[in-house]
Structures are given as structure tokens and as C-alpha cells.
């Protein structure tokens, strides 16, 4: 019988070693697998390369906590602002940063999951973020060559799972999670609940279980309510 559920956090995070590359899902507080990230921060692994949209927000949980713990030596993301933990490490030169346009980041991750070695995108052409990269004119427009970006591990959050690892999401909780599930060689999903096999409608499954290796149920897990100041720094 296929059963991807793991009984506890130790089983969920087994085999993540020093120097691993780790995809971390989430956009804002939604879809961030904070239970997994917090446990990883306490696990003692070091020299991680983290691939995520942001650098975390609050220092006491999630990516902020992981970066604050000193476990991360490199961050690949689109928008590292709003994280005091990251700022502190970055100013001291303790963490390497690669900034990637958000859509290019998403597409590079999807490419890794889909077996596409590299692709040409108009995004970033003629900008500093394309410096040193190959370009090619396609259909009259300059395109930048971008390579697939997969990782040893993907930590993702979904809402409902079954024992095959089929996943559905809630609200804006998909964001990077479905494509990161595809791009992790070991994909670990934190979910709010697990239903019996067959209960998820085949038409509404977003991430088929083929992309998921382990499922850990974490009760609760609703993200905190977000602030509503549109002009707040650190957004995006």
C-alpha cells in the first residue's frame, strides 16, 4: 500500500543534509510550511541554499527563523526585503544572495520539474539582472537564457492530502508550492488534513501524488491575518 504520510517531524525531515538545496513554498504568510521550516532551523543542518520568493518576515518563525539560525549560506529569491533576520546576515556578508525576477524564478522552478534544461524569456533583457547571461533575439525581441532551478528538497504547504500524496490548496496558497513540488528531488508537504483515498475529486487535485514524497499533517496552520497597509515597505 502506498502511504506517503509520515508519523512525525523527524520522519518528515529525515535525510536533509548539510549543503542541501531547499525550495521553500509560500507567498506572504500563505502557503509557507512554517512547521517544517521551524523544525529544519532546529535540526542543526548548515550551509543550505534556499530558493524562495522572499527572505521570510518575522524573525521568530519560518524563513526568518531559518536564516536567523545561520543554517542558510545562500538565498535565491525575487524579493528579500522585510526580513530583519536576512538583513542582519546580509549586511555582515554571511549570506550570499541571488535576485531573480519573480516570473523567471517560477519558470526556472517549473522547468526543473518538467525536464526543460533552459529557456529564453524576454523578462530582464537589457537589465542588470541579465548581465553575463546569453541573449538571443527571437521574433524581434531580445530574450535571456535562463536555466532550470531544481533542488534536493522541496518544503511545501498544501491544505488537503490523501495517502498517495495528492494535494489541494486553499485560497492563494498555491503560489510556488505546486511547481516546487515538481522540482524537489525529495518533496515534503505540510498539510492541514488528510482524507481517505478517493475522496479528492480527480478534477480538483492540483498536485498529483507523483510529485510528493512525504506528507506530514500539522493541525491548525492557518496563516496569521495580514496587515492591510498597501504601501507598507517589505511588500511584494
Amino acid at each position, binding site marked *: 500500500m502506498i502511504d506517503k504520510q509520515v508519523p512525525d517531524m523527524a520522519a518528515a525531515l529525515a535525510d536533509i543534509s548539510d549543503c542541501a538545496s531547499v525550495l521553500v513554498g509560500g507567498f506572504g504568510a*500563505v502557503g509557507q510550511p512554517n512547521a517544517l521550516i521551524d523544525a529544519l532551523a532546529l535540526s542543526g543542518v548548515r550551509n543550505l541554499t534556499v530558493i524562495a520568493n522572499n527572505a521570510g518576515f518575522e524573525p521568530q518563525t519560518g524563513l526568518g527563523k531559518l536564516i536567523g539560525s545561520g543554517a542558510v549560506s545562500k538565498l535565491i529569491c*525575487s524579493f*528579500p526585503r522585510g526580513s530583519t533576520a536576512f538583513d542582519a546576515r546580509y549586511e555582515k556578508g554571511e549570506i550570499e544572495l541571488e*535576485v531573480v*525576477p519573480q516570473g523567471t524564478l517560477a519558470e526556472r522552478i517549473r522547468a526543473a520539474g518538467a525536464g526543460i534544461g533552459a529557456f529564453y524569456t524576454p523578462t*530582464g533583457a537589457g537589465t542588470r539582472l541579465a548581465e553575463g547571461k546569453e541573449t538571443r533575439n527571437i521574433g524581434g525581441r531580445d530574450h535571456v537564457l535562463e536555466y532550470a532551478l531544481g533542488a534536493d528538497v522541496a518544503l511545501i504547504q498544501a491544505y488537503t492530502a490523501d495517502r498517495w500524496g495528492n494535494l489541494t490548496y486553499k485560497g492563494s496558497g*498555491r*503560489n510556488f508550492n505546486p511547481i516546487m513540488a515538481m522540482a524537489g528531488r525529495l518533496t515534503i508537504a505540510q498539510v492541514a488534513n488528510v482524507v481517505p483515498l478517493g475522496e479528492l475529486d480527480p478534477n480538483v487535485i492540483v498536485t498529483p501524488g507523483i510529485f510528493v514524497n512525504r506528507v506530514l499533517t500539522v493541525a491548525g496552520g492557518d*496563516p496569521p491575518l*495580514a496587515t492591510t497597509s498597501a504601501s507598507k515597505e517589505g511588500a511584494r
Partner: protein
Amino acid sequence: MTAAQDHTPFSRKEMAGLVANDIAEGWYVNLGIGLPTLVADHIPAGREVVLHSENGILGMGPVPGPNEADPWLVNAGKENVTLVAGAALFHHADSFAMIRGGHIDLCVLGTFEIAETGDLANWSTSGSDRTPAVGGAMDLAAGARNVWVMTTHVTKAGEPKLVRQCRYPLTAAKAVNRIYSDLAVIDVTEGGFVVRAMAPGMTQGRLQELTGAPLAFSLR
């Protein structure tokens, strides 16, 4: 330049109203963080416009009332939002496929500088003063069918933001096709900046003084 206050700049709300009024029914629109967000509140009643949020939402609705927020639903600015009837949810690669693939009719962004060629510089003011961070700006500027900018006409120091050539790092080349500043509405054409409307009391000469590139005038 001893600027007599002989004109009344458009207020933020007036700017939002000007933008909103120019959005056609049926357009798919992505509103950037900050000032552009205000546009949503000014779309004329009865005109259906579909708002896109790059984190995976089409059909974004207004900010929820107190105690009505769904913690699982945020916009690109990480605020809690609502959905309208007809909304759809999807993942980041699909969301940026909409942007990059030219399916978004309009993106409204803030900016540091705009060149008369349409070059946009809105993500970084220098090479080293601050942690670099780009978000989805480059994808939106390169991908949306129309890129409109909402901005003050000059910086806080009084320097023009509309220039011949951007000094700051580019977000995208030849991207912007219209500017809504607090002083004027300006099309970016093959021939450069063309002013379509001006704030009350503004003169052509004064606007040119406050602009770092030549202006043509074709007021509507």
C-alpha cells in the same frame, strides 16, 4: 526655478480616477503595490474589469471588512483580499504565464524614472546602497500589453522623473506607454513624450521645466 504655486497637482485619488477611467471594460489588469492599488476603488460602477494578482488570483475583490478576512487569501502586497464572482485561483508559473505571455491588458506601476523611449527604472536606485529586490516588476513591465506608470512628476528633491535616459538600473526597456503623474497625463510614443492632459493651472512651459526630456503637446 522659483516655482510660483500657480497650479494644483492632481491628488492621489484624482490620479487613480484618471487611470481608472481609461481602463476599458473587460480588461485584465494588474495593479502594482502602493499608489496603483488605489485605482481599484475608482473603476466606474458597472464597468467589469478583472484584477490580477501575480500570486495566483484573477478576479480579486476589495479589502475585506473587519472580521471578514480569509487568512488564506492575500494579494501581491500580502494584504488580505476577497474574490469576486468569476474569480479563479492558480499557481505562480501559470500566473506569470499570463503576464509574460501578453494576456494581461494593463499593468499599472510606480516608478523612479521613465525615459522618453519608454525605458522604466523602478526597482533599484543604485548598485550598492540597499539589498537588491525586484519582485515581479521586470516580468510585468516586459509582459503586459500596456504598462502605465503612476508617479509624482518630480522627486522629493525636485528632480524630474521623466528623463531622456534613465540613470537608475532598468526594469525593462521600451516598456511604458503612458504616464499619469500628479501634473499631467503623458503618452510615451515613438517620438517621445506627448502630453494629453495637465493638472489645473499647469502651463506647457512650466511642465516642460519640470520634465527632463522634450515634451510635445496634444491635449485631448
